[in-house]
């Protein structure tokens, strides 16, 4: 760690101050010719890896049904109260399913608690980060927008399993 010096401990060169200004100017001049790190967004898009928490989505099984059993844990744990579930029942082996599953994307804070608490691995965070809407109604994502084929979510699911 650098030792903090007082004014009286400075050497003459340090007191003149100009050499350090010149050194600083040198550093910024060098920087001007270094490669740039800017990602020029609409043309070049950021490709996140599995660790990324984008918008939460519902896992859709290969047969087209959702994994969710409408237990309501995600809705319960959600700190921003963004998730709203209406459960229903069927005659299938897996009886319960969400009749209505809505996430208000204006409320969602992308904390990933819903994903963490889900016993069925049915809600996961996707890689999608381009979430824009022009009115409040559009911000409420229903099942039509949330259901995502499991094939698209493999990377995230593997990441989650690796962490357990």
């Amino acid at each position: 760690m650098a030792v903090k010096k007082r004014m009286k401990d400075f050497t003459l060169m340090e007191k003149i101050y100009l050499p350090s200004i010149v050194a600083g100017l040198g550093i910024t001049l060098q920087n001007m010719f270094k490669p740039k790190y800017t990602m020029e967004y609409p043309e070049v898009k950021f490709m996140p890896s599995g660790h990324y928490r984008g918008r939460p989505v519902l896992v859709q099984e290969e047969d087209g049904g959702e994994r969710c059993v409408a237990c309501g844990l995600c809705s319960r744990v959600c700190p921003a109260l963004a998730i709203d579930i209406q459960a229903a029942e069927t005659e299938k082996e897996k009886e319960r399913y969400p009749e209505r599953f809505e996430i208000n994307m204006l409320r969602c804070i992308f904390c990933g608690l819903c994903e963490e608490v889900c016993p069925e691995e049915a809600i996961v965070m996707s890689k999608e980060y381009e979430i824009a809407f022009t009115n409040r109604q559009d911000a409420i994502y229903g099942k039509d927008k949330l259901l995502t084929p499991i094939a698209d979510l493999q990377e995230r699911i593997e990441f989650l399993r690796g962490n357990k």
Partner: protein
Amino acid sequence: MESLIIAGIALVKVLILANIILLTVSYLVYFERKISAWAQSRVGPNRVGYAGLLQPFADVFKLLLKEDIVPEQANKTIHTLAPFLALFVAFTTYAVIPWGPDVTIFGRVIELSVVPNINAGILYVLALTSIGVYAITLSGWSSGSKYSLLGGVRASAQMISYEISMGFSVAGVLIFSQSLLPSEIVKSQSGLMWNAFLQPIGFITFVTAAFAETNRLPFDLPEAEPELVGGFHTEYSSMKFAAFFLAEYANMMIASALIVTLYLGGWQVPYLEKLGLSAGWEAIIQVAAFFAKLVFLMFFFIWVRWSIPRFRYDQLMDIGWKVMFPLALLNVIWAAVLAMLIK
């Protein structure tokens, strides 16, 4: 007829210079953003036009469309007057600065400076830049906001402190040129007798004072975004804000032009006459040399801004009174001794 021609020539010179100033100032803003981006490994504005070259026009257009807000607590007359005072000062100071040698066109000798023969040229510049402080102080005072007021007070204190060392540094130059005419000052620095080499201490004090006078970092305490939320121009918006913005960059250009004229040999290129060029080419090269020096200094201003952090207010006053002022005095003595030895 004769007086009409003289007036016409003056008008053409004013038009050319005013356009050069306006264009340079708008592109200074662009290059400020570009250079700051490069220094921080970013790309900078590149969307409007080729490589973002139309960005300054987009910025001005945006500012024109903004709402012009005058705070309720403000003194409306002075609040409106202040930005235009700043602009006035910024655009009139150029009049005396020579940007090229005398040229002969159609048998008529034309001095390349709007008002070439004011025999108090440098005093005129110093006087006008002092009026520039009023613009900032008045804007700070009339806004009726504590941030603005603090910015204005800081500006006046800073200007008084640095004007002194600036004046004394200029005195060193005047000892050598023995004239207050800017063109004479330029002519006295022929060859490599640039004042920057003859009196380096004066050069450093003058450049530092110029930074303080133009409110550029590391001396931008009247603005000081993190502490004063923009300082004296906190309460300005729309075109009035743009006027301050323009004035700041125009002042930067004046300061650069002054440094070139006083210390870097103005439009002179060392030993150019030995090449034996025709008078026309020589004049063109010399005008180009003036603008090249100007551009380099303006780059230097921006470069410094993105390299050095801001001084604390007490440090600013310490440097102004305890370091710059004695150094400037020392330089006057040095210049006097040197002038006795050389001349």
